[in-house]
């Protein structure tokens, strides 16, 4: 409304005022719709958060009402300690961090040379990468299992990190390729004039300039590694102490199918880090994607 008044002095005609009112009404309606939709979208989270503080009786009595019947934080302490969600948490963090580092290294280096240098076989490399995007790789898990076994990595977190990284490589490489290909040539030329070599240009100039894309790929990789269910399940089958949060939660659901408030606490535990990281990185996220698709 303040805007309305300050704009008004020149020619405060009824027509203008009507237009301004219509604008304000339209804007309020937009916000109302967005908030309503957002609430529907958010409801399962609110309900889970509320239910994680409910008592077992309250859980059934309250049903869909997200408000808890008191503050039963004991759900959290027992999930963390007794059901070893604490160690699942650490495993998940190790896997996610490892996958992020490995993916960023492999895809930024490859994305750079594929976008900015010319070498015999470049087109063949891009072709190979493009084709793999379309090939279904859901059930190649058995040959992968074989390879991991031959590398003596079975039942280690390394196997989960490596296989998890491999699953997102193609898309991340495309993102880096797109991003690097939109950068100005002059930047590299200037660095070269200053005497920088191939490695210096990449590590000291191009990589630091690709911050938004590092954030984007890092976030994508972190999300999928943190939530990954099938890969850690397969590679840590005979070592329960190596379980990640999703696997641990599922195992818990199978064994004690009645302790719902507890599962809600577990869900919240596995959600918190990812929400925090998303909130921290999200402003780079859309810009990074936009930079990549521009190319």
């Amino acid at each position, binding site marked *: 409304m303040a805007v309305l008044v300050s704009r008004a002095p020149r020619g405060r005609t009824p027509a203008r005022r009507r237009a301004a009112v219509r604008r304000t009404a339209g804007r309020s309606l937009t916000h109302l719709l967005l908030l309503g939709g957002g609430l529907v979208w958010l409801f399962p989270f609110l309900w889970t958060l509320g239910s994680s503080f409910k008592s077992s009786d309250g859980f059934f009595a309250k*049903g869909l009402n997200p408000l808890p019947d008191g503050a039963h934080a004991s759900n959290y302490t027992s999930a963390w300690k007794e059901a070893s969600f604490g160690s699942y948490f650490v495993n998940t963090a190790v896997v996610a961090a490892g996958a992020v580092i490995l993916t960023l290294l492999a895809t930024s280096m490859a994305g750079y040379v594929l976008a900015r240098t010319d070498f015999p076989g470049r087109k063949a490399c891009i072709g190979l990468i493009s084709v793999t995007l379309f090939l279904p790789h859901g059930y190649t898990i058995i040959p992968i299992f074989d390879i991991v076994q031959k590398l003596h990595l079975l039942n280690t977190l390394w196997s989960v990190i490596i296989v998890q990284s491999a699953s997102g490589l*193609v898309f991340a490489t495309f993102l880096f390729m797109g991003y690097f290909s939109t950068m100005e040539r002059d930047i590299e030329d200037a660095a070269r004039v200053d005497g920088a070599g191939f490695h210096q240009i990449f590590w000291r100039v191009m990589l630091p300039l690709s911050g938004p894309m590092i954030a984007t790929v890092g976030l994508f990789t972190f999300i999928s590694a943190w939530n990954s269910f099938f890969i850690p399940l397969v590679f840590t089958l005979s070592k329960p102490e190596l379980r990640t949060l999703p696997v641990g939660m599922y195992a818990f659901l199978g064994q004690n199918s009645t302790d719902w408030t507890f599962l809600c606490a577990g869900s919240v535990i596995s959600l918190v880090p990812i929400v925090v990281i998303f909130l921290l990185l999200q402003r780079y996220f859309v810009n990074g994607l936009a930079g990549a698709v521009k190319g």
Partner: protein
Amino acid sequence: MQLLDTTTPRPPADGRGAAPPASPRKAGLWRRLRAARWSYLYLVPLMALLLTFVVYPIFGSLAYTFYRWNGIGSPEDFVGLGNFRQIAHDSIFWRAVGHTFVYAIVVVPVQLVLALVLALVLNNKKLRFSAFYRTLFFLPVVTSPAVVGVVIQLLVSNFGDTFNNWLLDAHLIGQPVDWLGSPKTALGIIILVGVWQTLGYNLVYFLAGLQTIPEEVYEAAKIDGAGRFRTFTHITVPLLRSVGLMIVILAFIGSFQIFDLVQVLTGGGPYFGTEVVNTYIYHLAFGGNQAQATEPDVGLASAASFFYGLLLISFSVLQVLIFRSIAKRRAAGRA
């Protein structure tokens, strides 16, 4: 390394800049390879991972398709194309294909339209709290399918004061419905959850696409007196087309690979009523579905997987061809 590198000739780039003494074409292959040695080195990590864990396994599993094999020891019982024949004649496989297509054909358009509308609204620079709304709609994306499975199962369950009671009170249903217990409603729930969970990705992709349209173009349209609708159809749609094509293809690829949601919500049941291709393959490879093959059959699973892969590739090619011909016809019409 870095000191040495300063003497490395610049790899022949895009033709700009000072031309090397001999043109790269004429220089021997060996010299071109030598000049590009660092490029190859930088590709090593990606290629090692890609070839070992993505490309080889695709062909590795191809070898299994010719055997009847339970996954223990090494495959010996050679059956030739028998596995493919068995898959092609398995009605459950075709039902699973049908469910997957129904899922994709409902989820993708609904979600893309919703995501595009939301992206157009949220892309408005004058809209306040845009980042906040974006976060709201993106949250389901960052949520593990395991968590989603648990929460949705609880939300639609039969006990306590859940949706059933609300719907009963509103006289929308006559008696409590076992949402995940009957095939039709279960597939419906999976579709709803699918839209809910993956909308955020497409929203962000569309936002990224919209940001690539320069502001000046919109301003020019405004000066020319174009209304909102004309601006959308004449500027936004054409300029968003290439990004849009990528989003559509990614959305279809993602939907055709649906696994986690079905596995955690219904496990493909009841009575294969929500079985999708990936859960079908999973059950073949690892056993575990009520009425199905009790003995895991990796060969059969690999054959199903490969067969489905061929279906998917032909679908992708078809999609690209259709989009191309539409684009061409439009271009011809304008000329």
